[in-house]
């Protein structure tokens, strides 16, 4: 007899080029989007602030943004022993959404590997837990990442590799980021995505499903090298998540 799982959830990752509660306080569009992807009314959400060294202020802001009214929030600190969940693996696998904060990608990867979190997160992904994050929390899912501001001089970092692409964040906003990324791909880094602030790459499986944004002008690109070695940088279509809300407001204003 064929055995089918009760529930089949696709593998999903949302990588923010920048944005979410830590960068766009008051603009909840990207955070609302990832909560919506879980398909659950009151999703269980776990925040991993590792890349910031588990900074207290970051954890506090997370709980303000992901209040108990809209979800079941929790976080795992790998630096503060008094706030630990008993079994990180069981806790992470029981979530609907895992939200990774920004900071230092190198320090994040080192700490996760020391605790086996890289393997647990892959397991969660395959089980259909939605994974998301901004900056370092976006770069960590890719095979290769162009390091961000927190790492000092720009370099290519091997990250967890669930997504077989390369990635750069704050693509249009941070000085020199786009140029460094184009150079790195020219020099042999695999093809991939440059995501600007407020733009989020939504992957289903390992393929890009769409790019969404929390600001109308946000952008993202796909960068690859042709067979002849020539570089191609293609603007990706972006769906602004605020359009419907904006229209509703305008309709309400007209009706008044």
């Amino acid at each position, binding site marked *: 007899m064929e055995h089918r799982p009760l529930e089949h959830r696709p593998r999903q990752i949302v990588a923010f080029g920048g944005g979410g509660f830590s960068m766009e306080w008051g603009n909840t569009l990207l955070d609302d989007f990832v909560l919506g992807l879980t398909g659950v009314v009151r999703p269980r959400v776990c925040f991993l602030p590792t*890349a*910031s*060294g*588990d*900074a*207290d202020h970051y954890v506090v802001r997370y709980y303000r943004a992901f209040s108990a009214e809209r979800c079941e929030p929790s976080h795992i600190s*790998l*630096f*503060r*022993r*008094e706030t*630990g969940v008993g079994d990180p693996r069981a806790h992470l696998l029981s979530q609907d959404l895992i939200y990774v904060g920004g*900071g*230092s990608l*190198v*320090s994040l*990867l*080192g*700490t996760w*590997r*020391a*605790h086996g979190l890289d393997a647990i997160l892959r397991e969660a992904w395959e089980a259909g837990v939605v994974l998301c994050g901004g900056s370092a929390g976006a770069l960590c899912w890719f095979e290769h990442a162009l390091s*961000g*501001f*927190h*790492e*000092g001089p720009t370099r290519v970092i091997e990250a967890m590799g669930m997504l077989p692409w390369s990635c750069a964040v704050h693509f249009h906003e941070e000085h020199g980021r786009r140029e460094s990324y184009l150079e790195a791909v020219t020099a042999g880094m695999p093809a991939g995505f440059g995501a600007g602030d407020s733009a989020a790459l939504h992957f289903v499986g390992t393929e890009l499903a769409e790019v969404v944004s929390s600001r109308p002008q946000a952008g993202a690109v796909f960068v690859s090298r042709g067979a002849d070695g020539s570089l191609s940088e293609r603007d990706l279509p972006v769906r602004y998540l605020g359009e419907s809300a904006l229209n509703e407001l305008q309709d309400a204003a007209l009706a008044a």
Partner: protein
Amino acid sequence: MQPEPAVPIDPRRILAMGGGGFTMPEEDRSEALDRFVLELTATAVPRICFLPTASGDPREQVTRFYERFGDWPCEPSTLSLFHLGRDRIDPVAHILAQDALYVGGGSMRNMLAIWREHGIDEAMRTAWHRGVVLAGLSAGAMCWFEGGVSMSGGRPEVVRGIGLLPGSLSVHLDGEPERLQLYEETVGSGELASGLAADDCAAAVYRGTELAECVVSRAGARVVTVAPDGCGGAVRRALPVRVLPGAAAPGGDALTASHGVSELRALRAGRQRWE
């Protein structure tokens, strides 16, 4: 004329504190061990860099470091591996340019994993051989040995260190019976090599790989050796200690005027006590 020494002097120095110094809660925050770190450099105005990696580079520890060392004859700096872009420091070059490195407490496992990613463990070894004083407390003390007992995962567990010094170390001897118990069990079973356990405010001074002396910043603080007893258990033996100038009285707190002032400042700044 002075005769040349037959053997070159070994420049390697490590100060391993069971606890103590500026990052501790106020009752264990005496200045004596922090002053002693500078003294070990034998330099008039030493360059000293603080690494709070094991606690995730919290701002509060950095503030406290400058409060303590800012007015002393030294060139203080801090190295945050979470903010290399902001600080624009080449971590390895910066480490090798110091006279002393001061490593804070926290998670030994996290700290060593992050150090490895950034190549800091190798830089520490090079610095040690060049005579840069390596000092630290708790995770920042155990890391120099082959191994120690960490509590940062909630339960006590054995964590391997960088292994510059032979043997093992356990810390906070006076305050954490669970840690001591696992330490004695693992030394007794041979999982960890013999070594030392140190109280808060007590430290072991190594010259080369030899224990040179034990110093304390509070009278009554202890350093003990822990070795297998041959029957699967461990035996403890107290080591002689030297009470540093300016040390606190036994069990008490010799608050100096300047200490009181910095406390007041901390209260005004509304900072929480560091765990």
